[in-house]
Every structure is written in C-alpha cells, then in structure tokens.
C-alpha cells in the first residue's frame, strides 16, 4: 500500500487503535477486533501491521506497564497520530462519497 492509502486490514487496526484511545497494545487490539468483527486475527498479522503503521507515522508508541501474566514484559501502547486521524477522515469521506454515488435503485429490490 502507498503512503496515502490504507489497506483494509490497516484501516481496521488503525480504527481499533483509535477506539482503544491510548490503551491499545497487541493483545487487546486482537480482542477488540475479534469481539467487534467476529474475525480471527493472529498476533503476527497485528504486529506486522502495527510496525508498518508506525513506519508511516500513523501511530506512535511507548512502553507501558508490566503485569505478572505477561511474564514481566512491558506492553507497547499505541496511539493514533494527527496524520493517522487525517488519513482515517479522508478514507471515511471517500467511502461516504462512493456510497452516496450509488443510484437508489440498486438497493431498491434487495
């Protein structure tokens, strides 16, 4: 994907990071996606996309606290950046414009 367009999964992960509002890290991003979209996601896929989004400056991260259940390892908490918000807004506007352009008759008999 180019710097200015999001892939489908990238968009989902970026939206989920925004939903979790500063509390987003690997495990709860997966839980959120599985709960909301009933879609199985692997840790490998999530981590790959998070690294890519960070490279594109759409999210930023910092180490959070550690818990016993994590074996003493810290979480990396992700947060959406201004650029990430801008891209999401643009993507949403593009989608809305496509939906608005569908002739009403298309869904009339469905």
């Amino acid at each position, binding site marked *: 994907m180019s710097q200015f367009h999001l892939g489908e999964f990238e968009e989902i992960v970026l939206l989920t990071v925004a939903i979790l509002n500063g509390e987003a890290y*690997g495990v709860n991003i997966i839980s959120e996606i599985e709960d909301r979209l009933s879609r199985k996601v692997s840790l490998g896929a999530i981590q*790959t996309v998070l690294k890519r989004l960070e490279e594109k400056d759409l999210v930023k991260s910092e180490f959070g606290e550690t818990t016993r259940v994590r074996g003493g390892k810290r*979480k990396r908490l992700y947060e959406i950046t201004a650029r990430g918000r801008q891209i999401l807004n643009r993507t949403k506007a593009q989608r809305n414009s496509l939906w608005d352009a569908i002739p009403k008759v298309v869904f009339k008999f469905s």
Partner: protein
Amino acid sequence: MNSSENKPPRIALEFFRWFCHPDFLEEIEGDLTERFHEYSGKHGLKRAKWIFVKEVLFLFRPSIIGNIYHLTNKNSIIMLLQNKRLILILVAVPTLLLIPLIAMQFSTGVDWKILDFLVMGVLLLGTGLLCELVLRKVKSTKGRIIFCGIVLLVFLLVWAELAIGIFGTPFAGS
C-alpha cells in the same frame, strides 16, 4: 500442578527469542505470554501450548525478524544449541539415507525404491525421536541405557523383519 508445566513450550519460545528482532522482543514476548495464559484458562494447557507454537510460527516473517544480523547473536545461538541433540537427529536421518542413495550409483547390489527410503526415513526418525524423548524424560543413566536399548532393539527387529522377514508377518521382506 507443577509450575514449570504452566509455562509456554520452551523450544518454541527459544526459537522466537532467536529470530525476533531485539527491538520488538519484549513487547511481543509479553503479548505471546499473555495470550498463552488467556488460552490456558479458556481451553486448557495442552491447547494453549499448540496455539503458542502456531503463533510463534506465524510471527516468523520479515517484518518481525528485521535485519538478519541479530540472528548471529552469540547468546541466541547458545540457547538454540541447547537443542543441538534434536537438531543432530533431524540432520542425521537424511544423511544416513544418503548412504544407500550414493551406493546405488556405484553398485547394482543396492536397489532401493522410493518406498524403501520413505520407510527407512520414518523408522530412523521415529527411533531418533524416541531416544530423544527417553533422554529428556528419564534422568538416571541406567534407565536411559535400558530404554534406549529397547528402542534400538525394536528398530533393528522391525528393520530385519522388513528386510528379510524373521517373524513371517504380512510386511516381511524376502
């Protein structure tokens, strides 16, 4: 329950620590461990271990490995070499199978078909893995010698039966 049993599979974890880029190691290992405990509570320990192995394999991708220079890190290699006996077994099986393969090029006395290689491969691998299991589970030297001896004896008997047929089973060779 033994506390060591409630931990992620050691070999998979060491493999992950070896290939994962050091910059990502802490966060992803934490995520893996947290998911392991979550699955352990939901689905039981055995299934949680399988899912852990699967997740480690799915993490084995360029974006997580990063540059390859860290793969030659000395500590990582030492950890991996703790399993060198297992690696040796896995390497020894195809190496031993090369002997008849090479012999076939120089002598008409050796004439193995694909099935022969397959059967011998399964036999050698099975024997090697069973010996590895014995060496890991049995701590006393006497016990190790006895159990490994039994495994090797069974291997030789099965081989002899398949090759020349000493018991007259339907699988006996002539």
